[in-house]
């Protein structure tokens, strides 16, 4: 776990122990304030839009977070290699957003995959807010 933290450069802000999603949100909030002085909180509605927005990548393919996680993240999704992905919403899968290193690893991969860049702390926080608000 610790090794990932070093790599992602978030050493100071993440605890290596299982954390509640709320704890994770606080850490992204601190980071978002640093990235943007005008930071005004996370929004589940913005997170929902982010989750569903289809983007056209430079290879011409379209992708969104919903491509693999499905339009309703309370449901299981599928990888491109056709393996089942457990639901992303904590209401359906309490293990989500409790392992900061795992969360950072997949934000790293999936943001690059869909957006072809890293996600900002604002985007990550909105995304998590949307998912933990799902009931």
């Amino acid at each position, binding site marked *: 776990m610790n090794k990932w933290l070093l790599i992602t450069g978030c050493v100071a802000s993440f605890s290596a122990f299982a954390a509640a999603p709320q704890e994770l949100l606080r850490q992204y909030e601190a980071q978002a304030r640093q990235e943007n002085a005008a930071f005004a909180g996370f929004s589940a509605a913005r997170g929902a839009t982010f989750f569903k927005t289809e983007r056209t990548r430079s290879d011409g393919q379209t992708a969104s977070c919903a491509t693999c996680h499905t339009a309703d993240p309370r449901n299981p999704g599928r990888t491109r290699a*056709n393996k089942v992905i457990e639901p992303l919403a904590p209401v359906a899968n309490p293990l989500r957003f409790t392992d900061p290193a795992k969360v950072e690893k997949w934000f790293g991969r999936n943001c690059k995959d869909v957006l072809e860049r890293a996600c900002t702390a604002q985007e990550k926080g909105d995304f998590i807010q949307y998912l933990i608000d799902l009931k």
Partner: protein
Amino acid sequence: MKKWMQFLILFGSVSAAGTLLASGGGEGDGGRALPPVSNARWKAECSSCHMAYHPGLLPERSWRRIMAGLDRHFGENAALDAPTAADIEQFLVANSADRQPARRSQRILQSIPPGAAPLRISETPYFRAKHDEISPATFKRKSIGSPANCSACHQGAEKGDFSERLVKIPR
């Protein structure tokens, strides 16, 4: 004419018996399943997008190529931090087809030309020969997706068991 046919039949049965002997004799590994292997990081990192492919299904040179290109892995980013990647690579190499006495591994190895280092098990001549009766349309079924989805058809795939009695092609 008759003698010619008799000869053919005789020749056919002798070589069939030979093949039987060869395949029965050399086993000695309790059936045809690959030996169980495990490594915690491999299990965690290489089974999130697909099943964890047994290291005995590819030679060392293929695993080294795969591990060197994880950031662009079949169109996906599967990059790992350096210590985790090194640990997994060592495990894959130590159990690769080159170091695996299991018959299945040896057959896969022998089917690959010396200069080649395929990135896919499903591209090895061994795999092609064993699946030549399955049409591309079957592989594309929604329940399967591609030849890489071994466990869709092989119930024992995760355990390295590809024996015939555990094969069922889903609709």
